[in-house]
């Protein structure tokens, strides 16, 4: 993971988000990086990542139909007036309230990046205390797979 992060920072590529976790094969980790850049830059990033000796395989998810998911935890003020409003918004977005106190809720939401952004936009800014996002992961639709 350090090699990937080091590569991005050394060559001045932008990391919007980065997630990494083990797979069903304990000797293999799966990493998802969200970056941005022109086609030429993305092509160079792809080639440089493939050059890393530890990288077994790499795909650009944008080349395929795919599903993206990200987890977000949001801590909000939910005093007596706001409580109903917040709960309604959470239901609309199919999120869950996973922590309750007298004045706060913690909301868990999963979905594609745009859905999470839309939820934050829909929330009144002054209600948001803290936002924690996991970074996006993705998987190709149908039979196409990134496997060893």
């Amino acid at each position, binding site marked *: 993971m*350090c090699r990937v992060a080091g590569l991005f920072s050394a060559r001045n590529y932008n990391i919007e988000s980065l997630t990494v976790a083990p797979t069903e094969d304990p000797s293999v980790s799966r990493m998802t990086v969200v970056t941005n850049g022109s086609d*030429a830059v993305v092509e*160079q990033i792809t*080639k440089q990542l*493939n*050059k890393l*000796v*530890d990288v*077994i395989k790499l795909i650009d998810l944008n080349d395929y139909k795919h599903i993206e998911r990200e987890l977000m935890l949001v801590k909000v003020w939910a005093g007596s007036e706001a409580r109903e409003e917040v709960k309604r918004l959470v239901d609309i977005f199919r999120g869950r309230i996973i922590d309750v106190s007298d004045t706060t809720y913690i909301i868990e939401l999963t979905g594609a990046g745009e859905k999470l952004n839309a939820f934050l936009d829909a929330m009144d800014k002054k209600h948001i205390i803290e936002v924690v996002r996991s970074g996006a992961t993705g998987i190709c639709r149908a039979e196409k797979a990134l496997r060893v």
Partner: protein
Amino acid sequence: MAKKIRGAEIFVKALIDEGVEHVFGYPGGAVLHIYDKLFKQDKLKHILVRHEQGATHAADGYARATGKPGVVLVTSGPGATNCVTGIATAYMDSIPLVVFTGQVHTHLIGNDAFQEVDCIGITRPCVKHNFLVENVRDLTTVIKKAFYVAMTGRPGPVVVDIPKDVTADATEYHYPASIEMRSYRPNTKGHPGQIKRAAELILSAKRPMIYAGGGVILDNAAGDLTELTRLLGYPITNTLMGLGGYPGTDPQFVGMLGMHGTYEANMAMHHCDVLIAIGARVDDRVTGDLAHFCPEAKIIQIDIDPSSISKNVPVDIPIVGSVSHVLGELNKLVKASGAKPADRGKDPWWKQIRKWQASDCLRYDRDSSLIKPQHVLEQIYELTEGAAYVTSDVGQHQMWAAQFYKFDQPRRWINSGGLGTMGFGLPAAMGVQVAFPDACVVCITGEASLVMCIQELSTCLQYSLPVKIVNLNNRYMGMVRQWQEFFYDRRYSHSYMDALPDFVKLAEAFGHVGMCVENPSDVRPMLEEAFSMKNRLVLMDFITDQSENVYPMIASGKGHHEMHLSPERELA
């Protein structure tokens, strides 16, 4: 149940089984067990340097000259950090090195222990790959992988960090005959369809240019390149790293290209309609301003590293594969086509090139009362009949060596191109001499570069390495001074070399022969005397003309067609 042996002994046996003959190193606490095992054997020859940087440059020079991996052994902490410059030098020029660094005990790692550094972290950006051996059972596999990674695909330096307890623990010895890595499978065979398209484009070219770089040397493809170039009859230029990949004395060679390349090479690049880039990475010293690079050309690029293709310049026909394989296939296709080589007498493109060659862009004042560095290099070329191993430091002297010493064979020109490391020349020459004890090895250097690794003069004495050091002493950091003259209105900020040593006495203090010369008429006699001493290292101090500049020159941000030429002649 096989016998168990300690990690230190496994290390030495593994290197011997891998075919390593020489190791350049310096001992220390973390590698004491290994050094103990080295003491009791004589199959692996250890060369004791005087600074770990010298070990890496020596191993680097050894690798460039032989094609075998250079091997380094140093201790932890400062031993490892002293290697970083040398590792980065090898990384930039894609040279296979395997650098073994000692490390503190595994249970002390991360504890700010004595002589501990995060060697893996520090070297990560300047190695092809690195490994930390966490258990003695992994040692032989890691060593095998290290050599495999260093030598295959695009070569590069590999660091192996070995904690001290790993060298003390014991296990059974088994050195794998071969290794496979599922995450690393370099592709060497070029795509046949692409090769065919390239052949068609090459044969249809009206103003072709072959541009060949260090990749030809690394892949031992000089023979294939020479065959192709002669079959086609096309002009060819080499990069600084590619010199010797095609015979420099051949009439089809138009000289080096780039920032200090010849007028004819750069003009031909600028006006060509088909550019055939072979084992060259299109780097900024070659291209000048990218917006004006080969504006009229369709570009074919052959390289083993996909990330080098279309990195700086979009390529029309990219071919990923080893240079020797792809050139072999191209040679077959060109022969099968029955095409005749271009007629240098009648062909309009060659006529144009000859006009550019007539400008004599490398001319210099041959009547000066001061020693001209170009003259010294011409004399050395004659005296050694163009067959010496020539190492270089960095700066003006390096450019003059590249311009005036014509290399007909690969692996004779040994210099730091990508990183431009001053101090490289002397230890690299040392490494080459270790590889070829009877060869003539010349180190071209300047007084600023020479003192950076001067301590290696002791290593040269200890192992009787009779390198010939040519110190082109202009009492300035020449290249810096040249830029300050051209672009900083002659504000020579800290580029004057004050308080220089007496180089003759310096050489003698280290046990060698020192000579000094100030008159042009004494240059040849001194060279003859020095080169006749086959068994002594000779340091020759040439007091040269301080005002001399390297021409031609393409300034930063300018194109191939915008060269500065020497004041001797101004060109339209």
